[in-house]
């Protein structure tokens, strides 16, 4: 009985799909999708990695008592959080980077995404630092540590637990947002999709596959995030 149903399903629904032109195209071009996926992951990973350094620095700048430090931190964070990433990509690729060096679209993508990610991570780090009990900073300073030593040895090691879940969310957001760099021709998943659609005209199949790959990646990341969160909770 059940097998019979399965048979009907296979013959009437699955088989036509497998035989369809679109599906064949997707299979045939799997290499292109994988190539795009790898580059998407690469841009995302590099951007979040650089973003962590930028974000930590920007958070510390913004929290500084000295205006010469805090104002640049605030301006940087506000600019990259307050303007669309799409515009940032255009501005840097066509406007600013050419004045500095001859950046490839991949380099430009990583630079802009890092700067953007850094601004969001800065706010995550700042919230994490501020969630650490004030008495911790006072205890460290009362022992004679300077602000940096207290941050590095006392505050940040406690802030990181608070910071990890929103960092995973930032990673997921960045993974999706890197699709925007397709506009400057940086090779990544969305760019692969655009090229494939332009030669095959199978928009539904190609974009459907692209969406599915993004979905799989973001699901995997959020599962990783849940796992980390659970491990930190039990520690």
């Amino acid at each position, binding site marked *: 009985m059940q097998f019979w149903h399965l048979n009907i399903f296979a013959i009437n629904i699955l088989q036509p799909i497998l035989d369809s032109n679109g599906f064949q195209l997707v299979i045939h071009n799997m290499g292109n999708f994988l190539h795009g996926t790898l580059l998407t992951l690469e841009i995302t990973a590099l951007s979040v990695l650089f973003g962590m350094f930028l974000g930590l620095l920007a958070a510390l700048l913004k929290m500084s008592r000295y205006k010469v430090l805090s104002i640049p931190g605030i301006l940087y964070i506000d600019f990259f959080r307050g303007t669309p990433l799409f515009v940032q990509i255009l501005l840097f690729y066509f406007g600013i980077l050419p004045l500095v060096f001859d950046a490839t679209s991949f380099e430009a993508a990583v630079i802009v995404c890092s700067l953007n990610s850094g601004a969001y991570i800065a706010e995550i780090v700042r919230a994490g630092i501020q969630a650490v*009990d004030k*008495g*911790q900073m*006072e*205890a*460290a*300073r*009362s*022992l*004679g*540590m*300077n602000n940096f*030593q207290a941050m590095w*040895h*006392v505050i940040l*090691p*406690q802030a990181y637990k608070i910071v990890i879940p929103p960092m995973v969310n930032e990673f997921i957001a960045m993974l999706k947002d890197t699709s925007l760099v397709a506009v400057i021709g940086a090779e990544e998943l969305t760019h692969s999709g655009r090229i494939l659609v332009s030669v095959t005209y199978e928009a539904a199949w190609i974009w459907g596959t692209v969406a599915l790959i993004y979905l799989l990646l973001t699901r995997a990341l959020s599962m990783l995030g849940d796992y980390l969160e659970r491990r930190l909770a039990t520690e």
Partner: protein
Amino acid sequence: MITIKNLYKSFGKLQVLKGINCHISPQEVVCIIGPSGSGKSTLLRCVNQLEKPDSGTVNIDGIELTSPNTDINKVRQQVGMVFQHFNLFPHRTTLENITMAPVVIKKTNKAGAQQIARELLRKVGLSDKDDVYPAQLSGGQKQRVAIARALAMQPKVMLFDEPTSALDPEMVGEVLEVMKDLAKEGMTMMVVTHEMGFAREVGQRVLFMDEGLIVEENTPQQIFENPTNPRTQTFLSKVL
């Protein structure tokens, strides 16, 4: 050792210290008593500049803390502080809590710092607790570790801000014992406390603070038996 002159401090519109003057000699143990909100913690925190006074001076061992040329981190190394809520570093073991400052600040080598830390843990009666995290300690044990942590920097002065106020009554004694030992060894101490028994027994001088001023100061015996200021009398009649 410590000379405080004309110290004023406000938080916004609230004036908390209204001209504090006092002098503490080397090896002296001075207890500060007074009602809640009178500015005792703020005074103590001005002594190691956790709070920046609005005006007035604090001089420790000849160094003017309020002068802009003073390296406050250097001075704080000489001034240990013990907080009401311990403020141990929860991500480090007790031994690491004690070794951290010497290793990070003085660049003491790790083995040397550990040896000193074990010595201090023995002194506060916690030799067997070197490898546990603060969360696994009782309040009294935490405070004793906090004292050891401050002592690891070999300070010349120790400030205590209600070190036993957050403790269950049965743990107060063990912390006061450690402080008594410290006083006997000749440590210069400023102790904000509600433990009148301790003030009487260990304090060489008692300052009574009210509304941002030192209203009366005298030997414990005089303060507790013949308080002259009516506000001191009222306060003591409530707490004794």
